[in-house]
Each structure stands twice: as C-alpha cells, then as structure tokens.
C-alpha cells in the first residue's frame, strides 16, 4: 500500500551534486573573505543580538563570549573567570573544557559545544571531552549518529566507565536503535551488575522489542536495585500488563506513584559539570535533590546560596526550614519557616510544617494558630486536622480536640499516634468506652507500642476492668521494662493483693 502511494506522490526534488559542489564553492569563497577580514583585527566582535555567543578572536582561535546581560553576577563572574583562563592558556584543553562545563551547566549550549570541541581537539586522550560533547549535543537534539560517534570515542578511552554505556544505550533507545541499545545496556551491566538504571534501560528496550518476559526480569532487578526509581516501576507495570497480569501491573503502578521520579544516573564525570553551576536556580535544583536524598547539610548549603540571590523567595525559606528541622536545629528551622509564612501568607505547606514543628516543641499556642490557618485553607487534609487536634488536646481544649480528631478520621486513615492522642483526649473527658476503642485501633496499627498499652490500661483500670488493665500494663512492661507502666502495674497488683486479703474467704 505504501509503495503504491509512493508512486503517486510527487517526489520532492533533492539538491543535486553539482548544486552541492557549487554551494561548497560559495562557502569557500566566503571563508576566504572571512579570513581576510578576520586577519585584520585581533578581536572582532560579531553579534546578532540573539543570545548567540560572540567571539573574541585570538590568533586563529575563537573564544566564545556569551551575552552575560541579565545573568546573576556570580554566574557571569564564573563565566568571565573561565574565559579568562582560556585567554591565559589558549592551548589548554583543561581551560577550554572548564569553560565548556561552566557554560554547559548554565544552559549556554552553543558555547559549551564549541569549548568541548576545542578541548577535544587539544587533548584527544581525555575521556571527558568527547563524553561531555556527546551529552551537550544530544541535549540540543543533534543527530544520533554524531552523538553515538562521540560517545563511542569516549568509551574507547575509558571502556570500563559504566555510565557511558548507559548513556550510549539511552541514545540508541531514543533513536529507536533497540538492538544496539540492548547491547550497550548489557555492557554496562557486565561492568556493574548493581547499576539499576542499566537494568531498567535494558528492560525498557526489551519491552519495546516485545520480549516481555525478559523485560520483566530485568525490570524486577531494576526495582530491587533502585527502589526509588518510579520509571522502573512504571515500565514493570507495563510489562506485567502485557503479560496479562493485571493484578501485578496495578501493584507496580501503585508503587510507582509513591516514588520521587526518575532516578538519576550516578555519574561522577558528569557531576563535574553539575558542580560548575552557581546560579540560584541550579542551587535550588541541587538542594531539592539533596533533600530528596535526605542529605540535609548539602541541601542547606545549596539553598543558602540561592537565598543570597532570592532572599524573599518563600519556597527557599521553607526548604531551608525543612532541612534545618531534619538536622535537629529546631529554632533555626522555625525562623526560616516563619519567614516563609510571612512572605507568603497562603503558603499552606509551610504553615503545616511550621505548625507541626511548633507542636513538637510544645509551643502550643503558636502551633494552634498555624494549624488552624492550614485547616481552614486546606480542609481536606486529615493529617493536619489530627495535628491541630493534638495541639488542642495538649493545650487542654479537649472538646475542640475531639471534634478535630473526628474530622481527621472522616478524611483519612489516622495513624497510631493520632488515634492514641484521640483516645487520650477522650479518656481525659471521661469518655472511657470511646477511648478504649481508639486505643484498641491504635494497637492494631502499632501492637508493640508500650505507651498505647499503658494508656489503654489506665483507661481500663479507671472503669474497673482490672484484669484487662493488668494485661496491658504487663505488655507495656514487657516491651519496655523501665516504662512507668511497671509502677502502675505494681500498684495495681498490690491493690488487688490487698483486696484479696480483705475478702471474707481469706479471713
């Protein structure tokens, strides 16, 4: 059918050879003119105002001079410094490569391309230059053959660098060259069997090749090696779906939803480029990643740099608050979170974090203010209702606390802690039978928690259900021998013994 249609469609004329030659002749003519013109000046600036790099020419070597207008000062300074280094050592591959990295990470790809090319021409033995050049070209959507050729050149220099094989596999996969992609991923796996992304890549390719069972095996390995990688779970869900196993597909799909996203390739060479970035946006991105990885110190460092440029950005303030909170620096965390809230009054997320932190610090009135605001702004968040309820309960406002716990329970499944606090509030209001129910629910979720056993035992004791009380005191002591339950247990047992002694049978 296709062939038939091809016959009836007029074939677009292609440039013929003679035209091409004429064309190249014209290019050389212009080149000659250009050489004459360029030779007459040491530095010639040509710029079309488009953001394309200008060129400062030093002898025969053009050093890109990107338009720095509007950039953050530290970024433009870093580029100037890197550029000055090239001026100082125009035949240094390292200097060119560094300028490439600095411009690359700040998304000045045309400049980076020139610099990496130059670095490569000056030192063809350094793995980094063809590697980074391949990556920056791919990012610009350049021809896959060009990217593959450079990546292969890099691999020849450092054949045992597994991330390069993963990237080569990715390039092939993007270009639809699936068998070559499969080979590249397999090489990466042979070099480093624990490289989850290589297993994932191979699994995805096998899926596209309709080798579904083999794909599922690779993807199962991938999710085991990189359990935070949503992409691996997603592909696994598709593999199961195609195998007709809808149940497991649904489970894998559900697992993918809880993940942060695509797991980043661990690539020390590329990290050199990432580290060259200094803009606030880049720092925020790095900060986010560090936060996701629970690396709070580095996250603070990145966000602090960003804060210098954007001191009034509430999201940066909140992130700093969260990072400090996780390092146990409560007061500093509260300061940042409070600033986030003051900068953006309707910042519900920041208010929730701040309120919860204040609650944990027993700053109850402040906590209640923040959490009340959050509950009004986002009335459908059960956990926030529960936090507010806990703060109210601690403050002694039991009726309001119980009402909030009820709202929380209507909105979401409460955790053991919230159920325990609810039970405690009910017990304090002498609603013992309801309290017992809540403690019982809490124990179902956290059966070995001595505090819940203790609270439940207290409630049971207060209504004279002494045997059950002893049972739960005992359980609390069993889990934690120094828990206050041991004293209550001793007292209760002593009371019971005394009572037994006073019974008529014993007289």
């Amino acid at each position, binding site marked *: 059918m296709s062939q038939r249609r091809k016959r009836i469609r007029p074939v677009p004329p292609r440039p013929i050879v003679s035209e091409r030659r004429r064309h190249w002749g014209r290019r050389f003519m212009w080149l000659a003119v250009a050489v004459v013109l360029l030779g007459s000046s040491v530095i010639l600036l040509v710029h079309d105002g488009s953001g394309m790099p200008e*060129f400062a020419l030093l002898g025969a070597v053009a050093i890109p001079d990107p338009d720095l207008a*509007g950039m953050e000062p530290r970024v433009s300074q870093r580029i100037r410094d890197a550029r000055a280094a090239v001026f100082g050592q125009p035949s240094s591959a390292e200097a060119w490569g560094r300028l490439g990295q600095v411009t690359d990470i700040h998304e000045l790809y045309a400049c980076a391309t*020139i610099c990496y090319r130059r670095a490569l021409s000056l030192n063809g033995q350094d793995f980094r230059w063809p590697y980074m050049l391949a990556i920056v070209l791919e990012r610009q959507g350049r021809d896959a053959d060009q990217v593959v050729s450079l990546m292969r050149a890099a691999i020849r220099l450092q054949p045992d660098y597994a991330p390069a094989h993963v990237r080569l596999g990715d390039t092939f996969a993007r270009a639809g060259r699936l068998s070559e992609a499969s080979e590249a991923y397999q090489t990466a796996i042979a070099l480093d069997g624990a490289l989850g992304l290589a297993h994932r890549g191979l699994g995805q390719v096998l899926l*596209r090749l309709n080798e579904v069972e083999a794909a599922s095996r690779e993807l199962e390995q991938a999710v085991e090696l990189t359990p935070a990688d*949503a992409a691996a779970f997603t592909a696994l869900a*598709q593999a199961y779906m*195609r195998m007709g196993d809808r149940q497991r597909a649904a489970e894998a*799909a559900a697992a993918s939803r809880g993940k942060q996203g695509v797991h980043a390739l661990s690539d020390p060479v590329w990290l050199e480029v990432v580290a060259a970035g200094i803009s606030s946006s880049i720092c925020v991105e790095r900060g986010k990643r560090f936060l996701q990885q629970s690396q709070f110190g580095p996250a603070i460092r990145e966000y602090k740099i960003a804060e210098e440029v954007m001191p009034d950005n509430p999201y940066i303030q909140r992130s700093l608050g969260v990072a400090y909170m996780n390092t146990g620096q409560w007061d500093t965390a509260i300061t940042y979170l409070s600033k986030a809230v003051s900068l953006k009054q309707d910042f519900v997320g920041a208010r929730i974090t701040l309120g919860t932190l204040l609650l944990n610090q027993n700053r109850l009135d402040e906590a209640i203010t923040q959490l009340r605001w959050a509950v009004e702004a986002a009335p459908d968040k059960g956990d926030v209702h529960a936090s507010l309820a806990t703060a109210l309960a601690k403050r002694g406002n039991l009726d309001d606390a119980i009402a909030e716990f009820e709202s929380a329970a209507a909105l979401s499944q409460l955790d053991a802690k919230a159920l325990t606090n609810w039970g405690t509030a009910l017990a304090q209001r002498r609603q013992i039978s309801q309290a017992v129910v809540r403690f019982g629910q809490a124990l179902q979720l956290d059966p070995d928690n001595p505090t819940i056993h203790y609270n439940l035992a207290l409630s049971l004791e207060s209504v004279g259900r002494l045997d059950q009380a002893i049972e739960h005191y005992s359980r609390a002591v069993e889990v934690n021998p120094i828990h206050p339950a041991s004293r209550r247990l001793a007292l209760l047992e002593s009371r019971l013994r005394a009572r037994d002694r006073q019974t008529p049978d014993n007289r």
Partner: protein
Amino acid sequence: MRAALEIVESQCAGLCILVVVVGFATGCRKDDADDVQAMDAGSRTAPWFVDITAEAGLDFVQETGATGELHMPEVIGAGAALWDFDNDGDLDIYLTNAAFGLGSADRNGEPRNRLYRQEPDGRFVDVTASSGLGDTGYGMGVAVGDINNDGHLDIYLCNYGPDRLYRNRGDGTFEDITVAAGIDVNGWSCSASLFDYDRDGFLDLYVTQYVEYDAATKCSDFAGRRDYCGPNSFYGVPDVLLRNNGDGTFTDVSEEAGIASIAAPGLGVICADLNGDDWPDVYVANDGKANQLWINQGGRGFLDEAVMMGVALNGQGMGEAGMGVVVADFDGDADFDLFISHLGVPRAETNTFYRNLGGTTGFEDATAECGLGASSVAYTGFGTAGFDADLDGDVDLFVANGAVMRRPVLPGSEVAPPWDRYAEPNLFYLNDGTGRFELQVVSAGPVCTRVEITRALATGDIDSDGDVDLLMSNIQGPARLYRNEMPRQGHWLIVRALDPRLRRDAIGASVTVHLEGRQILRMITGGSSYLSSSDLRAHFGLGRANKINRIVVRWPDGLREEFQVGEVDRILELVRGTGGPES
C-alpha cells in the same frame, strides 16, 4: 540543506553574512544553523499551506497584557476554535485573548475574545459585539458543543480566573449562563473537552487545571536571568469534571468521579474511547508530570490507568512537559494512537508518539521508530493535529511550536523583542502510509518557516473544498489562517454524524470508512489538543479509492450502524437511525 541555508542568508545582510561564514569557520554558527537545516526535507515549489489571514479579513492580534513582570499566564494562553455557530454550513472562528489584569491597573482598551462569522464569499466578519461573545477574561482554551441539545453550538471558555459558559440562542447571540448553570471554576483552566461520560445524552465537561499560580513568585533560568516560571514552581491542581444535569445546569463531580484524587499541572486534554469498551475515557497531558489516562468505569467514575497502559511517561520513563494531545489512527490499524507535544530546548524532550497495541494491552512509545523524535527536540510543541493533509488516506501531523523559556533568537523571527526569544517555527510531517513520518517544512511554506509563538491549532475545511485548513493562535501576535493547497493524492469525504434524538453532532462517535481492501477510522471530538476546538465533522482522505463500500458509525452509546454511501468527494450527513445494522 541548500534551501535552509538560503533562508538564513536571505534574511541577513552585511555583517550577518559574515556571521554565517565565521560560524562555518569555527563550527559555532553551523551548529546553530543545524536546527534549521535539519528541518529541511522538502522542495521549494508553491507552499502547501497558503496564508489567507489578510484576504479572509481575519485581523485578530492576541495581546498578552504583559508589563515585563513575566507572569506565567502570558506565555501559556491563546485559544482558538473552528465551529459553525450559526448553522449555515461553513466554519466560523473564535479566538481568545488575554487581559491587562496581570500586573497592570490599565483596564482601558481591555483585550477581548473575538468571534468571526464566515460570509458566503469566504471572508470573515467580526461579529463580536453583536454576539455578546467578547469575553474579557484572561483567555486560555475553548470547547465547543451543544450542551442543551437545541441544535446550536454553545461555547465554554477556560480562563485564568473564572471560566465562562455561553449559551447559543440560535439567533447569532450568546448568553452568559455560567452562574445559572452552576459553574464555578475559578482557578487556571487551560483546555476543555465536551463529552458524554455517563451516556445520558447530555454533554459533560472536562476542564484541565494547571497550577496554583502565585504572581509574586519570580523565577529565573539556569543562568540566573529572569524568565517565566515553570510548573514545578507551583503546586498542580486537580482537574474538574462537570456533569451536565440535562436541565441547563452542571454539577461538579470531580470528587465522586475520582478526578480530584490527582493534583497535576494539566494542559491538554482529549476525550475518546481508548480501551474499546464503548465508554469515553479522558487523556490529560500534564506539564512535567506523569500524564493521566482516566478510564471510564461504566459512567460511574474514572480510574487513572496511564501507568499500566504505558502512556504516563515516555518509553524511557521520563515524565515530559505535555502540552497538546491528539488521538488518531496514525498507523492505519483501526485503533486510536496518541501523540503529545512537549518542551524542547533546553530540556530536550521529544514530542511523543504512543502506538496503540490493541485491546487492553495499552500503548508503546514508538516516537523514534516513527521518525518523530529528533526533529522535535529543538522546539516546544503546543497545538497539534492529526489529519490527512494530502488526501492519500493516512493521518499526517502538524505541531505548532513556541518556547516558554527564553532561547537564542532564531533566524526569521517575526516577533518583536522581547517575545522574539520565544518564537519558533512549526513542524509538519507527512505520513508514508505505514505510520512513519517525514518532516516537510520547506514545502509546507510559511506555516512552518514563519517563526512565531504559536499555541492553539484548530483544523477544519474552511472553504469546503474537501481538504483540511489550519487556524493558529499566536502569543502577542496575529492569528493565522492557512488554506491547504497541497497537491491532492486522492479523493475525500467529510462526515457529519448527527443524532436526531439529541439534535446535535454525535461527539464521541467514531466513523470507519470501508474501502476496497482497507478501512479508515476517525473520531469526532469536542475539544482537544491544546486550548482548541476543531471542526466537529470527520474528515477522510481516501487515496485513489473512488468508491466507498460502506461506512460504520459507532455512536457514543456503543451502537454500531452501517451506511451505504458509495460516492466520494462530498460532505455527508449520517443521521442515526437511518442506516442499518453492521454487516
């Protein structure tokens, strides 16, 4: 190659020519020129799409209301619709405009949406004032459909701010019935689609919601230059499903239908039965997050099965910046595939083609195999449409582009600074009949070589000559109307599917034309792609076939009906109940 180089040279003079030469000497400019050269796969004959904007009298210019504060809605909006609002048999035009409300106190000369009526001579006349459709909301998308089954097309307007629903009175005027209809969607709506999800005969509305935008938030690019924020700077918002109660009112059923369970930055949407169970599903393109495929649970609600069906993330597991979405049978295997446009430089996403594997197996990312990958990386796609441009019997593809992040100014940009940094050329691909595409930029003409910031793309046969023409909206620029002048590779057919009980177009129906040895499948959708609504009729290129064996319509409630029509090259009305059972 040569043609593209000439374009670069012809638009430069003096030193600019030197830039090209120096570029060749150093390798820099050559790289930059590659973006253009890579696109060139055609000839320099008469353009396939001719700009008839001026001759048609279309004088709409979108104004963003920008004040330099770089408010995000400025770079998102500009919707378009091709619809026959006056039931006179030809297509009219509706275009949304922005407003001065963001960062400016200037309310004078407020930009308005505009309605253009097509006259018998093919010219378009601005009838905004008399129609009452000159809405001054900050306009985004448009959805068109007959919500009260009175035989007249009504219109839903997505806004940054309160949405609006206008009822067509049938006399050329419209009435704002938003409040009366009980509609209270007041966030940042982008695209909307009308469909009958519960199959009760009344069209319901799915409205994508973008983000909880905070105008005070300032963003910068990776070099620290101020630029428009991206969606990751804000929280996503759950979409909205409005059930038509059949009495002129709507009820927000997002919660009970399950739609509200996911908060994501939704942009494009299309409603279609994607798993073949005769219930319309919803596919939502999210910006930078996993997409949703809401599978209809028999009219009672929806479950997101995008992950399992392979259309949440691309083939490499990346969540992409989904903008426009189109559903069509691109590979001619009688099921519907998906195509989504995405962010290009500097994020380097491709547009993505998901091939339907059939049944309930799902889809696979076949972008590269279909030739749609590398060519799209350099640009940011928005409006997109699949239609048979050359009438050869397969579905070709158009992608309207325009950046959302500043980029180097491209040669030929027709947009004044500072918007020139966002302008990009569009892409047109010809299908070779097997589902493989070839880029045809130069041959397509100005529709692709012109460098603007295009957003919505609506398609339809404006001049009733049997081929599909294009309407595009541009940010801070003129809307463009292009007439299809491609060399014809075959016959054509246009089908309007009507349900007389409902007195309206059968939105959600699919129409299959059976020819000798092949069949061609099309769908009737009520709002799709990106911020746009296209001709509600199904268009077919038939190739060399000059006889139709039969046409089968699958009506929205699943009933299949067969029609014997025979002749080609005409516009047909297929009325439910006048055919026979499927053979």
